[in-house]
């Protein structure tokens, strides 16, 4: 007595959000049935396991058929096969493109290529996210990357438009794309304490300030690649540490401003030259792709770690960086104010984000 065929098709496509989530999470039909039973679906209405199995299979089939459309969400709105109400469409897309922070943390900054995909097995084992779900998330990243790569205009807006995502999710994807494109190193042990959201915020800063799009908004790849000219100009900042007088002058200006305002003043004064050298060196090396990749690790090593070992508070960091930045304007021989602001603006924000008390 085998059920050979069992389908249920509604004129309006029936989709249960719970089952959808289980499907997205990569549960097999049987696991999903078990999960639903554990969640107590059967108690709330009089049904048995067979009914649940049949319903789950139907829904899984529906989702599988919808998946093709979800991969180009714009089609979902004007396709004719499934009649789905607009607010449901939004839900479907948003959830399909949602990802696990633990998973994305693992692939952030890695090349979104097939080679990496083989590593998904390992990532799945490490994060506890099912392989199926890993695949979906990874493919989503890749798909978004591929589409926006060739588009003009602002990155976040492009993602939002093409994939009909919420602003928040579009920003996250922009960060992922940006990281993947520039291959920022995020996997080092020293960076493990940082969450995906930390990186996403940093990425937002970089995209808004350091890319070509930050100055000219109709260039291809404008938001994905860093502004080469700007990176070249950063070399000019070298003077801040190369010129001994300038460095001393800068130090005294900052110390004067900071004196009495913080408990960590002594450490600040002692470390000033080191820290300043660290930040300026990061700037001057950014023309090398390799050093761009190490941007975050450098920030941690050259600035955050020293500060942390001296037990600076977040407020201390803020105070210090504000004065450090502003004092440079008063330095007479220093002519690169605009570049300095553009650089330090981002550095300041990134360090705030990355500095966990």
């Amino acid at each position, binding site marked *: *007595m*085998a*059920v*050979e*065929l*069992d*389908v*249920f*098709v*509604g*004129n*309006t*496509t*029936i*989709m249960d959000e719970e089952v959808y989530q289980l499907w997205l999470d990569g549960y097999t039909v049987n696991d999903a049935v078990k999960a639903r039973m554990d969640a107590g679906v059967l108690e*709330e*209405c*009089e*049904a*048995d396991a*067979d*009914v*649940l199995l*049949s*319903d789950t*299979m*139907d829904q899984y*089939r*529906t989702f*599988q*058929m919808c998946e093709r459309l979800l991969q180009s969400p*714009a*089609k*979902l*709105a*004007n*396709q*004719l*096969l*499934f*009649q789905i*109400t*607009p*607010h*449901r*469409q*939004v839900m479907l897309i948003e959830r399909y493109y949602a990802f696990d922070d633990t998973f994305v943390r693992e692939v952030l900054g890695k090349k979104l290529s097939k080679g990496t995909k083989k590593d998904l097995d390992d990532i799945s084992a490490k994060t506890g996210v099912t392989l199926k779900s890993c695949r979906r998330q990874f493919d989503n990243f890749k798909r978004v990357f591929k589409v926006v790569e060739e588009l003009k205009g602002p990155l976040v807006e492009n993602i939002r*438009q093409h994939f*009909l995502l919420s602003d928040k999710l579009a920003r996250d994807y922009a960060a992922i794309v940006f990281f993947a494109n520039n291959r920022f190193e995020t996997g080092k042990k020293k960076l493990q304490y940082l969450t995906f959201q930390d990186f996403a915020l940093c990425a937002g800063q970089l995209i808004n300030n350091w890319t070509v799009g930050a100055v000219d908004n109709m260039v291809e790849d404008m938001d994905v690649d860093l502004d080469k000219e700007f990176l070249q100009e950063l070399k000019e900042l070298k003077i801040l540490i190369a010129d001994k007088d300038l460095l001393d002058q800068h130090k005294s200006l900052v110390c004067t401003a900071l004196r009495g305002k913080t408990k960590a003043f002594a450490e600040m004064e002692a470390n000033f030259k080191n820290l300043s050298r660290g930040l300026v060196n990061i700037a001057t090396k950014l023309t090398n792709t390799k050093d761009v990749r190490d941007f975050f690790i450098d920030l941690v090593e050259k600035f955050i770690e020293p500060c942390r070992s001296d037990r600076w508070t977040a407020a201390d960091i803020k105070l210090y960086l504000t004065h450090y930045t502003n004092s440079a304007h008063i330095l007479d021989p220093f002519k690169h104010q605009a570049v300095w602001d553009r650089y330090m603006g981002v550095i300041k924000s990134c360090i705030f984000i990355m500095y966990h008390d």
Partner: protein
Amino acid sequence: MPGKLKAKIVAGRHLPVMDRASDLTDAFVEVKFGNTTFKTDVFPKSLNPQWNSEWFKFEVDDEDLQDEPLQITVLDHDTYSANDAIGKVYIDIDPLLCTEAASVISGWFPIYDTIHGIRGEINVLVKVELFNDLNRFRQSSCGVKFFCTTSIPRGYRAAMVHGFLEELVVNEDPEYQWIDRIRTPRASNEARQRLISLMSGELQRKIGLKVLEMGGNAVVGYLQCFDLEGESGLVVRAIGTACTLEKLTSGSLASAHTHPNTAPASNACNSPSKDGKEPVFGEDLPSSSGPPTPFRALPTSSSSPPPFSPCKPCSRQSSSSDTDLSLTPKTGMGSGGSAGKEAGPLKTLLRQQTQTALEQREFPFFTLTSFPPGFLVHVGGVVSARSVKLLDRIHNPDEPETRDAWWEEIRQEIKSHAKALGCHAVVGYSENTSICEEVCILSASGTAAILNHRYMREGCLDIGSTDQRFEDPSPPSCGFCHIPYDELNMPFPAQLTYCYNCRRQKVPDVLFTTIDLPAEAAVTGKGCLIQARLCRLKKKAQGEVNATVISNLLPFMEYELHTQLMNKLKLRSMNALFGLHIQISVGENMLLGLASATGVYLTALPAPGGIQIAGKTTGDMSNEQHILTIQKRINDTIARNKELYQINPPKLFALDPEVFCGTNMELTEEGVGSPIPEPRHRSRLFRSHSESSDEVSELDLSHGKKDAFVLEIDDTDAVEDIHSLLTDASPPAGFHSCNTETMPGIYNWTTAVQMFTSVRVLRLSNANLSNQSLNKIFTDLCENLLKSFYFKLRSMVPCCLCHLNFNVAVPEEELIQVSVTAVAMTFDKDQTQERPAERFITKGGSETDEQLQFSLELCADSSSTNSQPSSRISGTVSLFTPAAKLCQSQLVVVHSTGVPENTIVSSRAASVDYGSFADRCSTWLELLRLKAHTIRRGSVKTSRRTQSLAHSVSSLEHCSPLTEGRSRSVRSSRSFGGSPVTMVKMTPLSFLPGTRNIKYLGIINMFFIRETTSLREEGGVSGFLHSFIAEVFAMVRAHVAALGGNAVVSYSMKDCVLMENPNKNQAQCLINVSGDAVIYVRETDQEPTASMTNMGQSLCAADGAT
């Protein structure tokens, strides 16, 4: 040369990649009509081509316009090899041929390929210019409107109901032609689709011609079916009811619509004012307080009751299911004549008594299932006939005589059954077939009835004397239950009592019909779906032997089904079945029988007796004990069901059944005995175990008198049967189910609807199954399906599954296929109590009022004195199976006060529909937004439509996530790359709750074939069928949207034939669907306060009426 067809190909989108190298497609389009083909330019390298072609013009006969579909083929241009077909779109242009329907077809159509399914969409514009043709010998019938709806469509009134239409065309099935061996499956499928499209076009045209001949202008209850007879050919046949419909004038609409604007806003809240002069809302109100519009002013004599004259004619009788095997299929003459068996001399007597104009018609049949009040006078009961035929190759497609003769035979039989019941007409008539190899079972069934002649042309002419006997001052709420026949001259023993409602006329104990519950009927409590299911094994056989085996089995099956139905009805403490549909499907080694109906408790009929269990061997203590437990379970079930379905008949005084056993027939009002507050009657049912006997239809009727209503347990079969009786689970809390249009007892639907189709196929793994275990498997299959529906639709609670239409088939030797189409509709929980007045708003609506008015009008014209408009349908059990005959309750209950049910409940009438208020608020916001939008766009016509459609959007946002609606919401504006898709609602009912159908755009009748050679890759049979059904829905919706509509009503899936061969990784499926495309608006549209004020008004009116 009366027509010019113009087509324009605008654009395509989402096309499949046809060139792997470039990942693009070089698409162009061929537009073909008849033998003329046009081509667009190739739009190179794009998946979203913009052809924007010129207008392709076809100058054609209107005959061709009716027969041929417009065929659009999308191809991929290939310089070096043959062009690859991407897919096709067939557009039926029939709706454009009718002035009142759509004027243009414009929209996105799915590009369909029989192997790959939907592959992108194409935007097409189609127009038709028709020239007048006064040629009286013309072969076309342009302008005749077709409706699948089996009632008078809303917004129309029937000026005349002409009668039965039938036609069939036959052809060779391309699948079985020699050429099929050398062509591709795609070519074969397309040839088949095209042929069927042509044949149904031709059929429709021929039916249309018949309508014109009769002087009508429309076909209502149009039912078209395909018989895939395999080797022997392809039959497309249709039946319908010819009518002269008149569109309700805009005048009457306008007057109604202007009113609410002048009504004070305060009317909107709280109790309805008792102000008698409140005008009426549109056509949706039963006119009981007087003619509200000038249009309705004609009736003159509605208040004067015609003289009472008792019904003369008649008989409560019933039909048999006859099976006769035609051994000479070519001539089509059956050998059987078993119809005469039960009737004998009585029949001739009755025939003489019912000499009316109707009789002169060949077939006084009507495919309608619900009627304007006053149309039905008496209901005689269910009549059915079956016949087993051997198929033979159709040699000459132009002469379909054989099939015609077969149906002719069956119809004659139905007609004679109806006559045997003393009825001159059959309503709720339908025909169907079941084919297995070369054996075909033809079935027809309907409800014998006596109709009011005023609706018939002939009736109009001789309206004088013949009509009088049908006139009777019975209240409409019970009139149709009264027996039409002479109680002294009853055709068989039956229990009659005085009507529990008016106490003037006799009523039968049980009533079975194939029609919908009349809107005006008084019902106690709620109804429910009742199903009888049966499996019978048969030996495999060939040809005549096989046919004989089947025809021998049929009577037993029918008997069993009726016994089951009757027992289940009693178990639910109900006394009437509506919408009865019995399907018997034939397979190679078994027969499946499924009877579905909606059980209700008609207030006018006596309370059903319980079921008593009797054991054969008395003295055996353990056995006694066993019987006692079963009896207790049955009694408990009945008690529980009474509570569940809220069956609390108004104060009843029951007589001790035993006392009046013998003399009950003569009971009168004076005979009221001592009151027993909650009558718990013991009725007895005799369950005959004479299946082994050959002469079922000749069962001794006297059994009924001796031993009725006892279930006797004398073998294990009987025990199993009783157990299976008790296994039917009632729907979970919050759910109701029925197979009729709406559920009695529920009147406050919300606008949330969810139509669905579900198919389940079971493979019987064990070849050596007994009848009993097969029955159990089949019953479980049906029950599990229902359980699945309840689970899936749980978010819609409280909700009712309406129009549950089960279809069983035996596609292969060990497969059982059940397909179900139904609609789930939610209702407001707080107001589920009966509100009789409201049912006219929600259901009867437009028909009742306007059609009622018609009859009055007509009477005035013909200066008749008998113009009582109330309907008097009376009827009885009509099934002529022994079961039906034997079921007699041995008790008589007399209504003590005669208070009609309506007055008891009408005090609840004051409540106002708050439920939808919030909903409405959000609607206004949405509306404002859209108004701004549409005004910019200009055209008044479109803007009005958009507005109204916008309402459905907001409602959907507000309602459950399952609700359907239109996607023109704010959010969807986020999408780009094309206009949002129109939300199209679908329902098997003739209406959408809370809405009005403002325009019928034409009939949708589509046939699709899908085939795959990569079954596994498509997710197995389930995956294959799932996507195919979704594709069919999509294509129906697209066609409706292109006609400018936003809903399909009276939708049905008439065929779903699935053939699979998993070993070869192949499957093929054929689906045939039909329905009426409509534009609906929410009742709240155009006049914001209308629904609220009018609810009050109509209730007032109804109060006045009761």
